């Protein structure tokens, strides 16, 4: 149904209300009542309003994002993406705050000994803390449904009443479903299912390329023979040369892997969402923090699950795994390890003014992403604002130019009204409210009667 479609997406609702309530009727009314100048002005004003209010920020944001990860800003001379994070796997800032906090909580929980346990606990806490926004209504709807069955199907209604529908009625997931979903979200080597284990691929990539590929290229460049190279000691200089070649490669590889995982994630995410919906959640959810307050409000379930996948793929797994193997370790974590993980996520590359605003290679992953995202959000926004602010002035300029720089707001013109151009504005010959059958006809009739009676 049309209403359903319009209502399900706030952006569509705004668009429909804008086109139907602002652009079309206002243009028509102004054109009919106050002439072509006002009609044109209104149309330009409202249609650019639609564009800038509803869409523009999003579109320019998309463009900025493509540029950010693309070759234009991210090449060997000018590198915006210094840590190899796929910013296209977008995580909203508030979501990132919440996930980061829950993750830090799990990490610093002394009861959790291994990285694998930390990851599991994080995912399970997050899923347990999800609440459908319509929990209360679900309860009422279920009672209503049972009530509707009572007359004709008393036995079924009785059975339904006895069922423990706890999690369904409260709009949350039961512990069994939580662990089922957490299993689905475990690291996987398959691009199509689970959370793609990028780290494992990277470890293999390093093994393949680090030992032979770039080093051989360098050897070629330096005209060193392979045998000679192997006899060289592991000097600091050699290690540095290796890293200089390998590092950008690894970063591009990370982004490429993440993009590959994004391309094929749809069926898996659908399955994840459907499982959650079958067992108590619904399309819109809140996420509670550790104190039980709503940290995230009115989020789409599928987007949130997608964000969780991105967070695990690019942040949690990247800091938790052993970089040599790319697997989650099963040995107990030391205090130093926990501190290191926190640094890798939240560390700050410096305290200078520039380092505060510009992402640097020394930043922690989340800090880096935040800085990048501030630019990625601010720049499109500023552009959209400049565009929309200039429209009002442009509009006036157009009218002014048409009338040789003299006429201003029709009716307030420097050029006196000749009684024809703007006659409707001043209520000239046939003002609208005196039209027979018009909305103000009765009012006008009364006025005339008062005037005819000698009145004032």
């Amino acid at each position: 149904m049309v209403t359903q479609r319009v209502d399900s997406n706030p952006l569509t609702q705004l668009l429909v209300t804008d086109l139907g309530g602002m652009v079309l009727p206002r243009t028509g009314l102004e054109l009919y009542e106050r002439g072509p100048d006002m009609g044109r002005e209104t149309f330009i004003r409202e249609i650019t309003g639609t564009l800038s209010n509803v869409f523009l920020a999003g579109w320019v944001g998309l463009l900025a994002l493509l540029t950010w990860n693309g070759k234009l800003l991210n090449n060997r001379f000018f590198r915006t993406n210094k840590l190899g994070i796929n910013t296209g796997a977008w995580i909203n800032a508030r979501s990132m705050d919440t996930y980061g906090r829950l993750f830090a909580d799990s990490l610093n929980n002394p009861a959790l000994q291994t990285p694998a346990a930390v990851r599991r606990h994080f995912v399970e806490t997050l899923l347990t803390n999800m609440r459908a926004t319509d929990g209360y209504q679900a309860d009422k709807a279920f009672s209503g449904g049972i009530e509707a069955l009572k007359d004709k199907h008393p036995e079924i209604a009785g059975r339904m009443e006895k069922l423990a529908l706890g999690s369904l009625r409260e709009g949350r997931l039961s512990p069994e479903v939580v662990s089922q979903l957490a299993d689905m979200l475990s690291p996987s080597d398959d691009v199509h299912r689970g959370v793609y284990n990028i780290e494992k691929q990277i470890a293999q990539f390093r093994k393949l390329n680090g030992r032979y590929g770039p080093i051989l290229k360098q050897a070629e460049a330096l005209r060193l023979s392979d045998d000679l190279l192997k006899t060289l000691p592991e000097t600091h200089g050699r290690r540095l040369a290796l890293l200089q070649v390998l590092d950008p490669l690894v970063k591009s590889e990370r982004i490429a892997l993440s993009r590959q995982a994004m391309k094929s994630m749809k069926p898996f995410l659908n399955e994840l969402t459907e499982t959650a919906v079958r067992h108590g959640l619904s399309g819109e959810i809140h996420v509670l923090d550790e104190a039980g307050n709503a940290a995230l409000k009115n989020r789409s379930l599928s987007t949130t699950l997608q964000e969780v996948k991105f967070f695990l793929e690019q942040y949690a797994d990247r800091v938790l795994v052993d970089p040599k193997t790319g697997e989650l370790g099963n040995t107990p974590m030391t205090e130093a390890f926990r501190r290191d993980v926190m640094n890798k996520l939240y560390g700050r590359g410096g305290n200078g003014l520039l380092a505060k605003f510009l992402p640097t290679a020394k930043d922690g992953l989340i800090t880096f992403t935040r800085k990048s995202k501030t630019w990625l959000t601010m720049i499109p926004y500023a552009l959209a604002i400049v565009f929309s602010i200039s429209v009002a002035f442009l509009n006036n300029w157009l009218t002014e130019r048409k009338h040789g720089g003299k006429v201003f707001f029709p009716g307030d013109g420097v050029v006196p009204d000749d009684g024809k151009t703007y006659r409707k504005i001043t209520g000239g010959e046939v003002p609208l409210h005196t039209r027979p059958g018009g909305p103000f006809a009765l009012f006008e009739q009364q006025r005339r009667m008062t005037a005819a009676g000698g009145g004032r």
Partner: protein
Amino acid sequence: MIGSIQTPAAHPVRFGGAGAAVVPQANAFLRNFDFEQVGKSTVRQNMLMYSLVIASRLMAAAKRGHEAGSYNEVREHALRDILGWTFWFFAAGQVQRLFLRFFPAKYRDVVVQTPYQMDKTAQGFWPRLRERLRWETNFLVRGKIPSAEQLEQRMGQFRKELRASAGDLGKEAVEAAERDAAKYFKRLSKLRNLASFTGISMAIALLGIGIPWINILVTRKNVAERQKQNGAADQSPAIPPQSAGFPSGAFHQPYYPSYL
């Protein structure tokens, strides 16, 4: 060794609190105006953007009005855009709740969730009235309406539970029960759609017809008055006084600027 190079150990993070990790939050700009999905602006962004657009329109209108010596345009923008902002973002939901308020509680309370739970043990006229008023205000201002998708999902869950619990009673019995339950859920979703249609069409009517009409009429009155004043000064009225707008032609007033 190599792994540690990609994220070199930075300055230690300073965590406050004893034991529990207090992690830094994103800046206020990001927390409020970040995208939720790539390429789609959020409602918060739209709100800020529209208010900036309104500010720019007011500025442009004030500039033009200053040159023309009239503030009709500023007044028009102020009324149209500020009411427009409010109605665009809030009218549909508000009208929906108002509309649903008049339906029986059996359906209404499933479709609108009121955050305030009425204290039914209150005794006496005034306490009961107070509770009632609180509930009504909450219903109208903060009532939460689930999306059509959510209602459908709840129906799916109910059907699943019904099949699971009554599977042994035979296919026909289950199907008959399902049909009866579906009737109830369909009624809910119809009511919701009707409310949403009413809300959106009312918002459109207010935005598209109500506000511009007020503007046109008020400006017409102001301009006519002003021309009458000018005409009296020049002894050459642009328009005969009896054809002017709202105020009667015989009604004389001292001159005052139209924006007062």
